[in-house]
Structures are given as C-alpha cells and as structure tokens.
C-alpha cells in the first residue's frame, strides 16, 4: 500500500474542492439567474471537460505549461519551479477537469430556488451577502455538497491527465491511480489490489453519499 500516493491524492482532491467551491457558487448563481449574450456558449465550454478525452487535455496542458511557453516562464519566474511535473500543475489540470462537476450541480440547485423567495428577502431589507448566507446557500446546499462529492471522487480517479503532465514523482505527482498502474508493472498485484479496493470503497461511499443527498426524503436541513 502506497500511503504517500493515497495522501497525495486526498490532498489533490481536497485542494481541488476548496478552490472550486467559491468558483462553483459564483458561476452557478450567475448561470442560474442571469441572462446574457453567449450564455449557451459559456455553458457549453464549461461542460466541455465532460466529453474531452483526458489525454487531449493533458497534451494541451503539457504544451501550454512547459518551461518554454510564456505561461510556463511566467509561472517559473513567480514561484521558482516549473508547473509541469509538479503538484501545482496537477492542481491546474484537476481544476479544469472538474469545472463541470462543480458548476452544473450548483447551477441546478440555484435554479430551483424560487425567485419570490429572494425578492421577499430583498424587500425585507436584507443585504445581498446576508441573503446569500441565510437563504441561498442553505437552500442550495444539497447541490453544493453533491458537487463537492463528485469533485472529490473524480479527482481521486484521474489518470490520463496525471500520466501526461505528472511524471509519477513520489510525494509530488504519483497519485493513487498512477501508483496502482506502477504496482501492476512492478508485479506487485497484492499492493495494486489493496489500493484498488481502497479506491473502490471510497468511490462507493462518495456515490452513496451523493445519492443520499439528492434522494427525495434523504438528508433534509432543519434550521
């Protein structure tokens, strides 16, 4: 069992979740309630990672983030190391890859909030921040939570992108999915088996949780 790899994957999944939470809330609300030109285009672009082959995204990231590109050089001058083959590089890949998992469930959740409720709150003189905290987030939280669960589980399983931009460096870019692949190549079927079983259990818990949240009569919030 490669604990370093498991911890690294959990870190990557957590970091992706933390960064995408505010982005998802902001984008989800915007898309749910505003009409603007090119909205369909924006929605389509946000959904693109759902259908894009991971190796394609990996290839473009490798080309875009490499040391010779403006983006790569800018990052290196800022942080002193290269973006490819680093944890931060994986994080960038993971953020892009998980955008639809963050935005879509949250958008649906915000869409389900009746406009009358928000209007009533505005009429009562509540500030917008207060409306967000006391009304919108509590009502949308099943959507937000299932987005978080999806992001977490999806990041743990990411393989193609990580293989392309990661380089399987222990403690930095060797995630649990890559470690399983490595263990099989090293004739360590026991190790690969234990790690696969671990991921299976985590995935089952995650999907179970997300169904529990979204099921009618499932977890309800009482405030």
């Amino acid at each position, binding site marked *: 069992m490669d604990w*370093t790899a498991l911890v690294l994957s959990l870190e990557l999944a*957590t970091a992706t979740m933390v960064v995408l939470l505010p982005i998802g809330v902001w984008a989800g609300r915007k898309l749910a309630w505003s009409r603007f030109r090119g909205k369909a285009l924006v929605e389509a672009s946000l959904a693109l990672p759902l259908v894009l082959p991971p190796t394609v995204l990996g290839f473009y990231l490798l080309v875009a983030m490499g*040391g010779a590109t403006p983006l790569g050089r800018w990052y290196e001058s800022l942080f002193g190391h*290269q973006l490819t083959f680093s*944890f931060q590089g994986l994080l960038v890949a993971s953020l892009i890859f998980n955008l639809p998992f963050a935005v879509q469930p949250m958008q649906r959740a915000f869409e389900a909030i009746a406009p009358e409720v928000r209007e009533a709150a505005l009429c009562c003189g509540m500030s917008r921040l207060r409306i967000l905290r006391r009304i919108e*987030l509590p009502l949308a939280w099943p959507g937000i939570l299932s987005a978080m669960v999806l992001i977490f589980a999806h990041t743990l399983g990411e393989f193609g992108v990580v293989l392309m931009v990661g380089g*399987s*460096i222990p403690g930095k870019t060797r995630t649990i999915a890559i470690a399983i692949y490595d263990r099989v190549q090293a*004739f360590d079927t026991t190790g690969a088996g234990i790690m696969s079983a671990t991921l299976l259990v985590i995935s089952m818990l995650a999907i179970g949780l997300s169904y529990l949240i979204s099921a009618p009569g499932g977890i309800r919030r009482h*405030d």
Partner: protein
Amino acid sequence: MNIARRMRGLALALVFLFSSAIPAWADAPVIAGAADLKFALEEIAAAFMEDTGREVNLVLGSSGNLYRQIGQGAPFRMFLSADEGFVFKLADAGKTVDRGVLYAVGRIVILVPHGSPLKADGKLNDLAAALTDGRLGKFAIANPEHAPYGKRAEEALKNAGLWEKIKDRLVLGENVSQAAQFATSGGTQGGIVAYSLALAPAVARLGSFALIPDSWHEPLRQRMVLLKGADETTLAFYRYMQQPTARAIMKRYGFLLPGER
C-alpha cells in the same frame, strides 16, 4: 444549526488538512531509471539508504519517455538510461553535468509463462514454428518507439526473420517492465524482455526464459548521468552505483559491468 458557520468550519478543516502535508514535498532527490532496472535499482537504493542513511526517490519508465520528460523540465537529478544515445542527446542539449558514465550492458531474453504452448528457446526456432502452426496468439515486447529494450527486441526478431510475420501479433508495453508483465500475465504466450527482469524472483517464478544471442541486436549500452541541479545525495548515489555493493547487485541481475568479462 448555522450552515454558514458549519461551512466555515469545514473549509478551515480542509485548509488545515491540505497545508499540514506541504513540507513532505521537499525531501529526497528524484532519480529517473530505465524500467529494466526496476528490481536492481530498488535493491541498490535500499542498500544505499542502509549504508549512508540517505534516501533517493526512484521513478522508472522507458528511457525514451524519461528523456522526453527531462527535456520538458521534469525535476529529476540523475538519469540511468538503458540506451546511452539518450544521455548523449541530453548532454548535447546542455541538460547534464557531463557526458556520464557507462554503468552496465544489458541482455534480452525470451520469457515464456508457465503453461504456455511456447518453449523458451533463445534461438527463437520454437517461436518461428509456433507462428506457422498457430500456437502463437499474442507476443509482448516493449514499445520500440521509445523503449530501448523494445528496439532491441525488434532487431532480434528481424534478425531471426520473424518481424513481418509477428508484427500483427505484438502487444506493446509502455516500457520493458510492462512488457514483462504482459508476457507473464497469461494474456500472451510470451515476450522478449530484459534479462534483469526475468532474473527477479517476482518474475522468475511466473515462467521460464532463455537468453537471445547478443550478436542479434545492437548492444544495450546503459549510461547514467547527473543532471543539472544534482545535489550532494545524488552525487553520492552516482558514486555508489560504481562501488562494489551496487556492482554486486547489478551483477546478480545479469548485467555485464564496465571493466569486466
């Protein structure tokens, strides 16, 4: 219950979880090694750790892939290639400290899993027979495009006049270690892999093997080199590779060493 407060608590907990592990990133130097070194290098790294108390992290893959990753800026400190050509190319590109040193010459074997209808015949006569009488379904080698052991396997098969016939039967491992895994997994009738892997206990118990004459292919001259930015531990490991303990391990894995024969 206040949802906002709970969310804040969750976020704090996550940030803490995430930040607590950051120091673990910066420690042992990362050393890139050809996949034929899988077992040998792991043993040497363990012996190095025992003798010096220092740790190195190993990343193994096909030499061609590692070469590409080094060119793209992967943070490796040392590169043990299975083909010295890659080391020279990196040296010409200014990525290395010097032109490195030859550390071993490798050999290839035909590896046949237990229960396979194929015989482990180093002259590949039985492979030729199996191709005509239909005993051969699939045969594993490493990808000749970027894995030196795959390239040598291709040369040996060409030398035996079997390449055209066997081409459509080949499954290609990403590196020679994966090729060995394919060769013994039961999905194929065998494969051509590194002698060093076939000698490893984890592989040896899965099948039998025979050496293919080294006159049938270009030599597998394996060269290692320190990359720019190599630290003291890496330098110590580079020297350790040339000392008796490491040489004895390499010899046990069937490598021909510089200054011997």
